[in-house]
């Protein structure tokens, strides 16, 4: 009898303990590379919704800034965690560029996880498997796809150039009225440069898909010399946001921008709503942003739940597509049922789906990419 009592007590205690276990407070720390709109997206839209679903979780968002520099900061932090030899890293989730993903995999800073993700099979984009020519399958889940395009102010530009070739003519007639940020301060300028190389190169497909061979770089000196000449007629802005601001302030009439940032700025009132977009021939690259989970993330389970949440069709439609104007990471057919017609009309107003298919390029594979950036520093900036 006493024994039974003891067992009963133990069971009750265990049940109580298990109950007590549930509301353990968790802080989900995520680092996000990208402009302020990305940080706002998580901090003000996703975090509150997610915390409603999981009341014991507090989402902490740390923004590291746009471009490769932002990804670099994440890598540095993960490397610090790794070097410290800790069992549980303080960073649970990262949102990172393609280049950053490759660095992170090389250094063993992130781990494969997408087998556990139900929304992974909704993805139709190639970029979920290959980033810059490197196999990243399993390590990443795309958060969205984004595209660069040329924005122009119809007040001053009645008949916008429809190709890089026409643009070169245009800047000569309108010196300093085209602006981009070079290769520092964000990827919109980088994309413009890549688009330029694609246009001039004899083998743009090799640059995008490989294989890597220096013989495909023989025509580069000439290509960059022409870009340097082109730069004499343009204004250099201060980053992704700098180009947008200069457009809004009428300081430049044309410039490459991220489509999503452009529409978000219009919504916030920071961009002249009359400004339009065009995707010039032969096209400019776009890129996805990736969700990745650090190798020893302390709260990997909740990180997975957050990724699942953001990529589930209803949430994806409402936030990623409608509110933040990104192109969906999962197949369009999955988000369509959750979206109004006007959202699509807005998103595809200037750049039609057909244009996107034809002129929406990929980033060059990693080996060419690094060399293209170095070439710009060496031949154009100096």
């Amino acid at each position, binding site marked *: 009898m006493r024994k039974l009592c003891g067992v009963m007590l133990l069971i009750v205690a265990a049940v109580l303990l298990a109950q007590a276990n549930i509301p353990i407070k968790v802080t989900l720390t995520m*680092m996000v590379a990208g*402009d*302020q709109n990305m940080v706002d997206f998580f*901090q003000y839209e996703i975090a509150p919704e997610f915390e409603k679903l999981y009341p014991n979780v507090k989402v902490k968002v*740390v*923004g*590291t*800034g*746009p471009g490769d520099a932002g990804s670099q*900061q994440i890598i540095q932090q993960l490397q*610090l965690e790794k070097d410290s030899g800790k069992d549980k890293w303080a960073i649970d989730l990262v949102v990172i560029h393609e280049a950053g993903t490759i660095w992170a995999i090389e250094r063993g800073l992130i781990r494969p996880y997408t087998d556990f993700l139900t929304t992974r099979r909704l993805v139709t984009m190639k970029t979920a498997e290959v980033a810059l020519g490197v196999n990243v399958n399993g390590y990443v889940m795309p958060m969205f796809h984004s595209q660069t395009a040329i924005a122009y102010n119809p007040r001053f530009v009645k008949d916008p150039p429809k190709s890089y070739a026409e643009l070169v003519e245009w800047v000569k007639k309108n010196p300093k009225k085209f602006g981009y940020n070079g290769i520092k301060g964000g990827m919109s300028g980088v994309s413009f440069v890549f688009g330029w190389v694609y246009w001039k190169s004899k083998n743009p497909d090799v640059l995008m898909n490989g294989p890597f061979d220096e013989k495909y770089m023989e025509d580069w000196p000439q290509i960059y010399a022409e870009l340097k000449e082109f730069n004499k007629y343009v204004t250099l802005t*201060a*980053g992704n*946001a*700098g180009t*947008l*601001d200069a457009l*809004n*302030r*009428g*300081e430049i009439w044309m410039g490459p921008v991220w489509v999503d940032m452009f529409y978000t700025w219009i919504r916030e*009132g*920071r*961009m*002249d709503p009359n400004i339009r977009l065009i995707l010039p021939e032969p096209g400019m690259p776009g890129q996805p942003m990736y969700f990745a989970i650090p190798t020893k993330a302390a709260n990997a389970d909740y990180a997975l739940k957050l990724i699942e949440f953001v990529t589930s069709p209803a949430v994806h439609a409402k936030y990623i597509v409608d509110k933040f104007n990104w192109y969906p990471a999962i197949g369009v057919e999955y988000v369509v049922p959750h979206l109004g017609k006007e959202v699509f009309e807005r998103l595809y107003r200037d750049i039609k789906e057909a244009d996107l298919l034809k002129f929406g390029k990929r980033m060059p594979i990693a080996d060419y990419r690094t060399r293209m950036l170095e070439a710009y520093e060496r031949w154009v900036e100096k």
Partner: protein
Amino acid sequence: MRRFSILKLTLKVVLVFIILLLVVGPFVGIAIWSFARVWYWPKPIPQEFTLRYWAEVFKQGRVLNSLVLSLKIALLTVGFSIAIAIPAAYAFARYRLPAERILLFLFLMPQAFPQLPIFINLARVFGRMGLRGNMWGIVMAHTMASLVFSLWIITATFKSIPLDLEQAAQNLGASRWRVFWTITFPLGIPGVIAGAIHVFLWSMGEFNAAFFIGAPFIQTAPVLMYTASAGYNMQIASVIAIVLMIPSLLFMLVIERFLKAEYIAGIGG
């Protein structure tokens, strides 16, 4: 004669206008931005105004958090800086220490020598100790760099207190400790306050240390202002800029008549 004075008056008006434009003009730009909702070229003023961005100063969120963090750091820094400076200043004023001038100059070094490499390396050291992204790391860096303000000003104040007052008390049998607390310190309070205000203002507006030690994990108001401005979030940046500017301007107006070149000239910010 009359025409001449009219000419002179016009000249003076034009001069006043130019000075105002040059000195106050930069404030006008950010003041307008802080109320703008929609503002695009070519309109000279915003198409739509809003108080939304000012509201962020008062409601829970990024802006308020950063301001509260900056305030906390500044107050802690003032506390530490003054607590360390008072005994040292007393020693400099009353004990004839060897190499006094060189020692005093040493404390100026963090302000008169390039700070950036120091903070970069300090951030690295703190990174290894787990003090990066930590408020206390910033407080420590700020205390070190702002020591010169409190130390120099309080030293000068203590030195200006006549010795005979203290000696008289000592002759009556008071201990040195007692003399300090009943005579020297009360007389030195204006200097302590001036030092504290200097440290406070400097810490509130400090960017380099706060950025390298704190960012991206914690953002003080200047760091948030920088991020906002770099992302051309003009309204947020301008609102924080104005909030941070107010204490500086107030202090300037209040102490205008007491401003002595010696106090600040050596300091630099």
